[in-house]
């Protein structure tokens, strides 16, 4: 599965620019699903039809990642940018970014040698332009962070683990899923990082009876971390709540019982901030019981996000089992 993860995390796909990731995923699952379509907002919707009598389930993992959008080019060919999703200035400085056409830029800071914390207004992008010559990018072009995937053995590091690891878990589950009574819609969503937008419209279209988001969550296991009872390596996390949702207790219990039956490690997640596609599914139409299977991840929204490989594989196992049986909530 590491090969799949590597491909997904290294792909280019900031919010609104998910086309390359979509093509990649479509290529992996095409032929393995009964229907495959892309909606108006770019969500990739794949249906694995059930044998009948089950529920209509939506599994959502977002394809988009945080990034930058060029807003202005000054007279000396430096670019100013807006952020696409939550980009931390502290980890932005010195980072490299990559555009859809492959152009590379470096994030600079007006106050390079300073102990202050940079503000967005003080940052700029240097794409190696020489004054007077045509730049490879312009206003409106979008970049993602540029980092290769690193396999540390048990732990994996990359940009965009949030949420390509969720895409990898969903895609792997899709490939492993055998006959099931449930109609399972695997939805690879767009624009989560800018406000859970893709999941909102795809949930309207799919009209699920149950929703499961697959996303990363924060951990409390690093030095001086904000207290949080989630650690890398303790298994996939079953969300109880985050800043956008209180998970339907029935969905949460379904996840817990399935994990217990399988005898796989799991942990419960209470995330004080942040939001996930869960909320969009839960609030869709007249309301949908929804939950979230989370992959614990360190350094979220930096160019080096870290997950544990056992947690990832545990999530796939749990998801496949959940989707395989009749669902009673």
């Amino acid at each position: 599965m590491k090969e799949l993860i590597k491909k997904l995390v290294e792909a280019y796909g900031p919010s609104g620019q998910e086309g390359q990731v979509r093509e990649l995923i479509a290529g992996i699952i095409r032929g393995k699903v009964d229907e495959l379509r892309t909606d108006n907002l770019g969500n990739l919707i794949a249906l694995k039809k059930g044998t009948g009598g089950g529920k209509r389930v939506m599994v959502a993992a977002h394809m988009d990642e945080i990034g930058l959008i060029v807003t202005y080019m000054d007279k000396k060919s430096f670019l100013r940018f807006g952020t696409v999703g939550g980009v931390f200035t502290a980890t932005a400085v010195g980072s490299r970014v990559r555009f859809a056409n492959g152009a590379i830029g470096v994030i600079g800071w007006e106050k390079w040698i300073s102990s202050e914390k940079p503000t967005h207004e003080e940052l700029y992008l240097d794409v190696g332009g020489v004054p007077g010559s045509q730049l490879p990018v312009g206003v409106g072009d979008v970049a993602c962070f540029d980092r290769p995937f690193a396999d540390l053995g048990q732990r994996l590091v990359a940009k965009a683990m949030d949420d390509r690891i969720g895409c990898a878990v969903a895609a792997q589950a899709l490939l492993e899923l055998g006959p099931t009574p449930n109609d399972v819609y695997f939805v690879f969503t767009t624009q989560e990082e800018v406000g859970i937008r893709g999941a909102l419209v795809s949930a309207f279209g799919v009209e699920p009876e149950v929703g499961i988001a697959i996303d990363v969550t924060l951990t409390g296991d690093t030095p001086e971390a904000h207290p949080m009872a989630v650690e890398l390596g303790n298994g996939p996390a079953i969300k109880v709540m985050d800043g956008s949702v209180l998970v339907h207790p029935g969905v949460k219990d379904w996840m817990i019982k399935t994990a217990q039956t399988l005898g796989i490690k799991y942990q419960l997640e209470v995330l004080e901030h942040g939001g996930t596609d869960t909320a969009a599914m839960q609030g869709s139409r007249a309301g949908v019981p929804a939950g979230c299977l989370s992959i614990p991840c360190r350094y979220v929204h930096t160019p080096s996000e870290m997950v544990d490989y056992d947690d990832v594989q545990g999530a796939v196992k749990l998801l496949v089992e959940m989707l395989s049986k009749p669902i009673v909530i």
Partner: protein
Amino acid sequence: MLLQELSDARGVSGNEAAVREVILGAVKDHVDEQRVDTLGNLICLRKARRQAQGERCPHRVMVAAHMDEIGFIVTGVNGDGTLRFGKVGGIDDRILLSKQVLVGQDSVPGVIGYRPIHLIPRAERERVAEASKLVIDIGATNKGGAEKLVKLGDYVSFRTTFEVFGESELRAAKGKAFDDRAGCAVLTELLKEDYAFDLYAAFTAQEEVGLRGAKVAAYAINPEVALILEGTVCDDLPKKKDLSPVTEVGKGPVISFMDRSFIADRRLVKLLLDTATRLGIPHQLKQGAVGGTDAGAIHLTREGVPSAVVSVPVRYIHAPVSLLSLSDLDHTVHLVREALHTLEGGLES
């Protein structure tokens, strides 16, 4: 001039009736159906008047502009006859001092007064007076007197005289609420043209307090494509640093690729840019990702709606007086009208 009538009309969010009346008067001979929905949106339909060329022509296109403006609402009457007020929409406290306002349906004149400089210690002068500590003076001397003129919940708008600045190069006009009466003026013009699809013109309510009217209007219209017309942020006066002006007055209509509320559909952005280039219409990209528009609500409707925003650049928005170029306004009408015709050929798939 329609823009003047629109600018003079008082329509703080939730109280758009006067603006609606002006628009109704201007569009009634050009639309086949019109209705006002529960939230106060004015939804006008101009049916297709030409044969669609090819199958890709959309059937229902929504073009939206919001009627409401920022302002205030009376939250209390003090014993001395002055009025406490709350802000409606995004208003910077620094712009409030010594402004003229009109209160309630009867347009009772008032001022947001302040103590004169003689009486203000130096330290206080360096601070911004908070809106919560300011009052509106309507010339009443006690609570009873004030309550004969106004009541709790009355809307308060800025009082601004519309004026065209003579023969200025920019063909500049100043007035209030160009955000988004400029868009309303453009949309009204667009209803005079014949298209190959049903054009739903949505003059929306309550944009400034959270894109509320557009949300329900788009749900009802269920469009296949949407264009949103705005009067947008402009910061083009000379600065010390070489930073983005966001938009520039006099440089033509503004095409957005992203703001806080939405990411534009790239096919529509391209269609707009191609149309402008082909016809030699001056235009500019919005060089910033700030602000929110009705597009934020419209593009998330039902299963999602491909959307784009075209704006008239306006200096000093969300202030008592803003400034735009009438040439920009004309070019915006031209661009959007032609872009709608281009859209008759469909969006790239």
